[in-house]
């Protein structure tokens, strides 16, 4: 959304690219400092990996929900497919850690992407709330089948998955996800995707292959959700089908909406805050869920009911990424 400029200069050594590379390296050192240094206690250190995983999930879901404008309640299903595929690979292959994990990430993401095609097809026919319920249905079908199959360990799930995920892998994957999705949405394809969201008929009438772009968005989002799943499984070392029910999808959706539809930066910030929040509220024990709910409602009201706009206009608040209107009705 923010800029349509870039892309003109294809040389790898432009000032901008140098800046970005420096930023990525600097970012890595900051993460390393946080993860290895004594600045944070163990609890907060252990949040670095989950935050990264949720950033990947949120940014990829933002592609379908924010940029394509299709409400998806099935992201956890893709995540489950990636997680299980990846775990089965590392549990059954006897290869060096790095090789095994790279294979797990690629195959996990790819299988999830194949399922993305399956779900992408109904997307061509359904819109809005109907699509939401169908994606939710897919999520539950996937969970139910994983629970039924023998190879996935049924209800007991898989355990003793090697703990390969660490902040280095997560950081690399987060950067990869952001770069690819950022470049995608700012490319011709990305503008086509946003055009479909803003005006379906107009997009079609100027010759955009609407179905191609819709499926594309779903497949790419599924791919990254699969990767996040692989990271998730190799962080927890156990997987259970119950961890991937529709509530997980809702959790990811909440991050996207709170961060701002169509805002990658917003997704990143919201992923960090919402992973952090329950931990901070842990001290409140019995009241934790209640506080979470109240904060969630309050933030939604604050963000969307015009209070923030007024505050921002009067200069009392810095301008932050906004929810874009979903005009497709």
């Amino acid at each position: 959304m923010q800029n349509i400029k870039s892309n003109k200069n294809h040389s790898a050594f432009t000032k901008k690219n140098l800046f970005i590379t420096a930023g990525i390296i600097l970012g890595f050192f900051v993460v390393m400092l946080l993860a290895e240094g004594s600045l944070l206690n163990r609890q907060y250190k252990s949040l670095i990996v989950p935050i990264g995983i949720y950033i990947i999930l949120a940014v990829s879901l933002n592609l379908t929900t924010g940029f394509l404008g299709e409400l998806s309640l099935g992201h956890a299903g893709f995540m489950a497919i990636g997680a299980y595929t990846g775990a089965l690979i590392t549990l059954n292959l006897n290869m060096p850690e790095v090789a095994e994990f790279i294979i797990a990430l690629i195959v996990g993401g790819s299988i999830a992407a194949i399922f993305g095609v399956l779900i992408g097809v109904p997307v061509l026919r359904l819109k809005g709330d109907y699509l939401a319920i169908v994606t939710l249905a897919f999520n539950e079908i996937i969970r139910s089948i994983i629970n039924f199959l023998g190879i996935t360990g049924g209800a007991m799930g898989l355990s003793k998955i090697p703990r390969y995920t660490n902040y280095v892998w997560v950081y690399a994957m987060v950067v990869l996800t952001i770069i690819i999705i950022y470049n995608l949405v700012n490319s011709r394809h990305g503008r086509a995707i946003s055009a479909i969201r803003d005006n379906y008929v107009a997009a079609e009438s100027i010759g955009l292959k609407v179905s191609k772009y819709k499926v594309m968005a779903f497949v790419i989002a599924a791919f990254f959700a699969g990767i996040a799943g692989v990271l998730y499984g190799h962080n927890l070392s156990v997987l259970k089908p119950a961890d991937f029910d529709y509530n997980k999808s809702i959790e990811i959706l909440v991050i996207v909406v709170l961060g701002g539809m169509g805002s990658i930066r917003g997704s990143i910030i919201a992923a960090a805050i919402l992973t952090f929040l329950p931990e901070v509220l842990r001290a409140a024990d019995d009241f934790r869920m209640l506080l979470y709910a109240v904060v969630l409602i309050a933030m939604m009201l604050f963000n969307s009911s015009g209070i923030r706009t007024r505050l921002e206009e009067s200069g009392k608040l810095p301008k932050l990424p906004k929810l874009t209107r979903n005009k497709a009705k």
Partner: protein
Amino acid sequence: MGSVLEQLINGLGTGSIYALIALGYTMVYGIAKMINFAHGDIIMVGAYVLYVTVVQFKLPVIAAVAITITFCAVLGITIEKIAYKPLRKAPSLAVLITAIGMSFLLQSLALLIFNANPIAFKSIINVKTVKIGDIAVSGVTLVTLLVTLICMIALSLFISKTKAGSAMRAVSEDKAAAQLMGINVNKTISMTFAIGSALAAVAGILFVCQYQSIKPTLGALPGIKAFVAAVLGGIGSVPGAMIGGVLLGVIESISKAYISSELTDAIVFGVLVLVLLVKPSGLLGKNRIEKV
């Protein structure tokens, strides 16, 4: 053969509850155009209010039922006023997330007040089991079916015949135009939520009579299933909700009995996907023309 009939009746039992909840879902969706995720939790609130009035205050059943329905209707209006109304111009997703937050809120409040332990509750409906040959139909199932049917007919008549009903239909078509026609949009939407929540309260009452147990999360799963039922039948359509609910219950029961009890959820949701692919607006839904 007898067992097939028995299984159909089992399906009818759960299906009639789904149908009743789906009526409320479909009503709110049809008029306010929002998926009220907290609808399932209003059922839970209804169940607890009934418990408090009947067991703790020892009120007569009729009074308890009346209080339960009124309480939930008022709760529905309040929730709408506080959480949904300020977001009427916001993107539909923002409202959805707020509704999810509201669902968490109601559940955690119930958890704080009544704790997580389920409470056993004696059914207030004392209708004897009806036996036809070998097959027994429980009284509660019959009452549920009857109540659902009455609610459906009353709701259909209300929407199509009364002045308030026409106002609702007008708001559903076009809020701005309805306002210009002198319809009080706020009042109409409040009324929609009141009726929807009252229906949820009725569903809550029948739910606890059928299953005789109350816990803070009791509304979540039936809520989702009823939502599926409403979509299956064509969301926004009152008879569709009824048909969708009963159908869902029967499909569940038959697939548990004759295919696999482990794959039931996959089958139920699979049917939903198939129906929507063939008929994108659900069984009885109107085909909406894409407006630009």
